[in-house]
């Protein structure tokens, strides 16, 4: 299966790339299967809203596109809403991914969840 137009759009024009100023939550995950790395930076306000978000990704087209899509989907959302974003939802939003690329979409949501969970733990949030 080839990449959908939406995947190519996010790959060619990734949203929210780089490092935001003063992130207060960071999640970094790597995939041991193919050695790819995704890092997500968030700035969460006291109400739990994701004010800003960005990513850096070393990986294939699908990894870059899912990183971009994930950040776009949760920007401005409450962290508890953001935790509901899973790889399947991201993949669906992108119009589907080739079967062998499904694990890449895992990475972005994993990094997001890791960042939020660490943030919650740090501030004693449930």
């Amino acid at each position, binding site marked *: 299966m080839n990449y959908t137009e939406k995947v190519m759009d996010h790959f060619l024009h990734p949203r929210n790339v780089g490092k935001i100023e003063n992130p207060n939550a960071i999640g970094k995950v790597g995939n041991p299967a*193919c050695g790819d790395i995704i890092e997500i930076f968030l700035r969460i306000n006291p109400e739990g809203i994701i004010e800003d978000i960005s990513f850096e*990704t070393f990986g294939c087209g699908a990894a870059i596109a899912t990183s971009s899509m994930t950040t776009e989907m949760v920007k401005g959302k409450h962290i508890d809403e953001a935790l509901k974003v899973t790889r399947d939802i991201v993949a669906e939003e992108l119009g589907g991914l080739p079967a062998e690329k499904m694990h890449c979409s895992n990475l972005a949501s994993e990094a997001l969840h890791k960042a939020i969970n660490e943030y919650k733990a740090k501030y004693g949030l449930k």
Partner: protein
Amino acid sequence: MTHRIYFDNSATTPVRKEVVDEIMPFLTELGGNPSSRHYEGRVVRTAVEAARAKVAAALNADPAEIYFNSCASEGNNTVLRGYMLGLGKNTKKNHIITTAVEHPSIFNTAAALEKEGFEVTYLPVDGKGNLNLDDLRKAIKENTGLISTMFVNNEIGNIYPVEEIGKIAREHNILFHVDAVQAVGKIPVDVKKIGCDFLTVSAHKFYGLKGVGSLFVKRGRVLKNLLTGGHQEKGKRPGTENVVGIIGMGKAIELAVAELDEEAKRVAALRDHLEQRVLAEIPYTRVVGDPSHRVPTLSNISFRFVEGEGILLKLDTEGIAVSTGSACSSSDLKASHVITALNGDPEEAHSSIRFSLGKHSTLEDVDYTVDTLKSTISLLRSFSPIYDEFVNSDKH
């Protein structure tokens, strides 16, 4: 589509015009079976045998030593499996020596033979992808029956010392097979000089059709058939011949050999220009393989901190076709075993791009590609976490 730049000629080449012209009558009017005794059959038989003579001449073999088949993967399987089947229960010669950098049609077939009880030694390569002949000498044992090595590597372009290997094989009375798929049309291939017993070739790597190859089997050498059926190819490879493929292959190999000297010089200059510009203008790049023992058409370059599939996709949208050894672009998500064999580093494979030039490549293509690469690499690095980490550490 507007002008495309095709730098993936090691994967396959487009069919050249002269080949199309040569096969056209056999697609339109001359449709007989070469095994038939009537006029329709005889015309086709004559053309098939003329093609066999051309393939033989190109390889300095005798036409009787050339067997047409469906592709080099079949040729490679025929040698390894045919050798094994020929031994039968007499398993005194059940050791095969090959290399760690073979094409999957050898690599995976050797692995299958291991499951059948064969012993296989995979000779390692050094950081530049070269073999050490002392490793070969040391690997030879009482029960070694076959050595199989490639002439030219398909991913890094290294040329292996097949003449020396052939000499060692003969000294020890061991059969020697050469996978010459990536050599034809790029460097001279002479079965007598190499001193091999078997040699595989595939037409689609030198502007012939896909799905046709040939296997050289030295007179007197026998391989057990993989297929049973009719009497075609002297009973060694049953099935009605791929007539147009064979006729096209004859034409393609004849032209490839005739043009070799001039074309090799021309393409080498383009390849060197590409490589010099990339190394000079894009930081943290490195040539993978051995620039001093390489075919003129190929350059494999690693672009640190970026993943190959991303580069490939980006170049593709800019009209440029290349390939990568990155795990991410293979369907089994395994990094190239060839590039990993060089230094054990899957990261290098991850970032490697193969540029394989061909007869249609021009200087403008090369310059446009380098310009596009410069922006592509800096864009992908701009959001690469490992590049970020690298520039913010004091290591560099």
